[in-house]
């Protein structure tokens, strides 16, 4: 078990500034929250932690390769899910940046004041602090989010202590490999849940905005001719919606030929040939 490329990378981070950099990167996940940044930062942190362990504890390179592979595969799975279902990634934001900043500051302050003196056997204090910080940030992300994508990112960070402990404290037990499998399966489950989410944003874009004034007259959308499409902003004076009624929806929102361009239909003066809602849908 000699020097490996992982150890070389690990040596770059296995010092005060390196650990501070990784801690700041993890904190930035909580602060920025954007899923692309969060996922990239989480994967980079996991890879850096594996490399630090390889450098300081002379781990079997196969174990480090397994950890790198698991982290990358988990990141790719979540990234693909976020890419193919970006609306799911942007829904259900349970907090703003100020709340997240306060939460982070509270955790740091509480840790500083209480100082529980946690130390993991065989780990240096710097490593211990980094591992605990990763776990706490992961827990904070999971606590502040109800989306599968962000929960998946939080769980990735929470598995980091498990990965480190399995590789260093129980070498030769095969636990590191089992933890890597668990990490991939966790990411796969969260990715599945991301893709299984309904497209809430897309659905809401198809919904007509309610007019500001309501008058008790029949809905024109219900009496429109086949092929005609109701258009936002062009409602007739009599067009309305009752309180508590189901909002109006376009019959076929993905059809590319707007009603006004259909044969025999003349666009009204001052009306766009294609409705804005059609462009954004």
């Amino acid at each position, binding site marked *: 078990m000699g020097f490996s490329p992982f150890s070389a990378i690990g040596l770059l981070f296995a010092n005060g500034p390196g650990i501070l950099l990784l801690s700041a990167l993890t904190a930035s996940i909580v602060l920025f929250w954007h899923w692309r940044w969060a996922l990239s930062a989480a994967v980079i942190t996991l890879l850096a932690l594996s490399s630090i362990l390889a450098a300081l504890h002379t781990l079997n390179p196969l174990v480090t390769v397994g950890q790198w592979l698991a982290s990358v595969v988990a990141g790719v799975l979540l990234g693909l899910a976020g890419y193919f279902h970006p609306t799911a990634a942007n829904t259900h934001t349970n907090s703003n940046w100020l709340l997240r900043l306060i939460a982070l500051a509270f955790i740091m302050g509480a840790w500083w004041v209480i100082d529980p003196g946690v130390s993991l056997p065989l780990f240096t204090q710097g490593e211990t602090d980094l591992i605990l910080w990763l776990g706490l940030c992961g827990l904070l992300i999971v606590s502040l989010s*109800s989306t599968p994508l962000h929960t998946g990112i939080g769980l990735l960070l929470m598995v980091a202590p498990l990965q480190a402990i399995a590789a260093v404290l129980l070498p030769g037990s095969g636990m590191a490999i089992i933890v890597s499998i668990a990490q991939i399966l966790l990411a796969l489950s969260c990715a599945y*849940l991301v893709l299984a989410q309904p497209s809430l944003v897309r659905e809401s874009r198809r919904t007509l905005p309610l007019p500001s004034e309501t008058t008790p007259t029949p809905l024109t959308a219900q009496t429109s001719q086949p092929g005609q499409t109701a258009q936002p902003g062009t409602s007739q004076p009599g067009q309305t919606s009752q309180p508590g009624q189901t909002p109006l929806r376009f019959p076929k929102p993905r059809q590319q030929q707007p009603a006004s361009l259909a044969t025999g239909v003349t666009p009204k003066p001052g009306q766009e040939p294609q409705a804005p809602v059609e462009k954004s849908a």
Partner: protein
Amino acid sequence: MTPVNAAGLPFLLLIFGFYLVAAGASFYLRAWVRWVALGGAVAALLVAAWLWSLDLSLPLWVLPTGWTVDLEAPLQLSGYTFQLQAVNAPVIAIYLLIAALALLIHALSGADDAFPTLVWLIAGGYTLGALLTSAPTPPVVAAPVLLIILTALSVYALQGGRPMSQSGPLRALLPPVLAAPLFLIGGWWIEQIPLNPQELAITQSAGALLSLGVLLLLAPFPLHGAWPAAGESSPPVAMMFVSMLYQLAVLHLAAQTVNAFPFVYRQSDWSLWMSALGLMTALWGGIAAIGATHAGRLWGYAAVHDWGLIVLALATPGLRSWTLVLFLFVLRAISMATTVVGLSALEQQTGSLEMTRLRGVGLRMPWSSAAVLLGGLGLVGFPLTAGFAGHWATLQSLAVVDWRPAMAIVVASVGIMLGFVRLARLMFGAHEARLSIRESAWSVGAATVALAITIAVATTPQLLNEFITRALAAFA
């Protein structure tokens, strides 16, 4: 996996082959989901009965074809040994029994065609975990990581192809992820004990870590959120199957931990933690149920209340308390299954378990509605329901020590009862528009059987004596 010193065909190969064939067949025949589920339920029931009655003092079994099957032949994979023993055979049989129940109930609705396949895979995984008897680290140390894998797999069953809130499956992932590092560090301390057997600090550290790990795995308040959320968003049968399997695995793990390392109980605050958090879980289940507006969530809170009582009973692990824990767990399984029979039928007919959608449904589906109410109240220990005997025994043993927690639990259970009374008033209240839903004959049959079992157990709980005595071999 390689068999070791087998005197014939290793029995475990047959078991794992059975799981794989069942999962494969369920997947390929998923177009006929009801028949697949029904066939799977029968198969699981037969294998469970066979495992339950297996006599391991006669380890060789001769097939009619002349082949010999070695019941106790271990299988090895990278240093991990799997073996059927007297301490894990009853647990595997109960896993299969729960799987059979889930498949049987699923056969009535047949909503999710992937569910039977997932049942076999998840049950197979839990069986694998129970069979783990030896590993490079103590098996109890490796078990929580296996639980992470199994919970991740359970997410697919809990999601059930529904485009709804995912908080239930997501929250279910948390407890094993939180607990696993504690077990691994505890495992390292256990490895240090032979090097310095007189050092008290080592056993204290290991004991505290493993106690805390077991506690996190038990998912008491405030980690209980997965089950009420899953009760609301997941198919009821999936929630029952996943939660019962997980909780049985954790109870078995707790028993293995305490039996293998007695210092875990003696040199840690196990009793204090279990008592306090068990009580809080039971109380919170009652309080939260008051405001529930969804029948599934109400059921989930009732299950949380019941689970709090089980955690409370674990405070002093011993033969008597394990008997009580198993008694409560079996009654819980009966109550849960009864509720699921009713909830599945109601959901299939009304499309939702929102309480407002269930107005007047009891007049059209009286048997299923009765199953929901009697099963749900059984989780609270209401008189003349399955859970009454278990709750009464627990409250009595608790009141002997201190009457105040017992009284608090009774008061908390009133909250859940009020929730079910509200549900009953809605279900059996008059509805302005005449409902077109109708209770199918299969639903009536299933609800009748479930109610009959519930009432039989409620009136004569000693029917379970033999079952619990046999299961106790795996725990105490």
